[in-house]
């Protein structure tokens, strides 16, 4: 008889989710089956390994200043602060501008990384405060984040660092603007800013994905033999 039918019960027994009667049957089977005992040990080892992972992993940067800034009494976020955050995010994107040389293909020609919303279907000209536009941008960001995660090994550590720093600042800007919108829901200018910064976030991810694709193509291209 195949041991497959016992595997589920082995797992349930380790989770204390197996009735006593079935537990007895399992114990009898384990006494006679070395393969299932190994299975039990492997599973027990995995669960023990998970439980022994460090309980604490501090963040790479100190998050307190950003938290402290939001820990005062509830107050309206001044518009100038929001403008400053958006401007700072925009300025930082300059760091990612391509260096002179052959340009990678435009973002519109980049294939979507996963089925569904991709860069090619981005609402690049969506209106201010367009909720559908924001949802599409969020969906595109999700796809591109997955593509970035897949391809980060192909990028230089410096590029990865710059991208992550930019994304962190953009995320910070988005949170600041969202707070301002929560305090002033009818402010269309703030909603427009939110769309703008989210578009920049997608643009950063699209840019870095293009770079990794272009780099991959470059490496795949056959090289001319030496001496020709």
């Amino acid at each position: 008889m195949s041991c497959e039918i016992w595997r589920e019960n082995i797992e349930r027994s380790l989770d204390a989710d197996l009735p006593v009667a079935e537990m007895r049957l399992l114990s009898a089977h384990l006494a006679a089956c070395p393969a299932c005992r190994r299975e039990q040990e492997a599973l027990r080892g995995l669960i023990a390994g998970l439980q022994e992972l460090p309980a604490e992993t501090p963040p790479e940067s100190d998050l307190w200043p950003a938290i402290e800034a939001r820990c005062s009494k509830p107050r309206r976020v001044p518009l100038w602060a929001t403008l400053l955050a958006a401007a700072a995010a925009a300025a930082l994107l300059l760091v990612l501008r391509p260096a002179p040389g052959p340009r990678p293909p435009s973002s519109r020609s980049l294939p979507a990384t996963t089925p569904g919303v991709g860069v090619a279907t981005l609402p690049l000209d969506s209106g201010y405060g367009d909720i559908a536009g924001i949802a599409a941008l969020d969906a595109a960001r999700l796809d591109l984040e997955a593509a970035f995660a897949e391809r980060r090994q192909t990028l230089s550590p410096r590029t990865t660092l710059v991208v992550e720093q930019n994304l962190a600042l953009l995320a910070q800007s988005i949170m600041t603007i969202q707070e301002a919108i929560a305090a002033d829901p009818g402010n269309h200018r703030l909603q427009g800013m939110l769309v703008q910064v989210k578009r920049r976030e997608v643009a950063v991810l699209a840019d870095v994905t293009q770079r990794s694709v272009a780099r991959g193509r470059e490496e795949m291209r056959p090289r001319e033999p030496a001496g020709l």
Partner: protein
Amino acid sequence: MREASSQIELVSRARGGDVEAFEALYRAHVGRIHAVCLRMTGNRATAEDLVQEAFVRAWRKLSSLRTESTFSSWLLRLTVNLVVSHLRSRLPRELEDAFDERAEPGGRFPNPAARVDLEEALRSLPAGARLVVVLHDLEGYRHEEIARLMGTAVGTSKAQLHRARRLLRGRLVV
């Protein structure tokens, strides 16, 4: 004992609006909270955003904490709820679908011979499976609690856990 009474004092002061006391609580708990956020989301930037949000919410809701001594577990629960809510809004289908095959073409990982560490293997799991295995095996949540948090059936939580462990083993075994 002294540490516990010190924390109770810090919580009490923070409830009164003392930001310095709250910073001390942040310093004491940020490693734990960040570990949970990072393992549940698998993404460093998202995890840091959620850590910030969790502490800001904790600050704003401190007055609803009835007993100072339960601050640690209260903060952890608040964080888990926040992360699950975030993931549900971002990845509703993945969290509820017990059999998303994207991460396991042919039922196995693309490179089963790769030896990677457990943290990396956890990060590579599909969102729903990762969430359940972290809550169940690392944080000690029961399937009933996980199902309630995720808005799914208990059976879905069990299926996700089984799947997560199978994928982890496939990822770790040479």
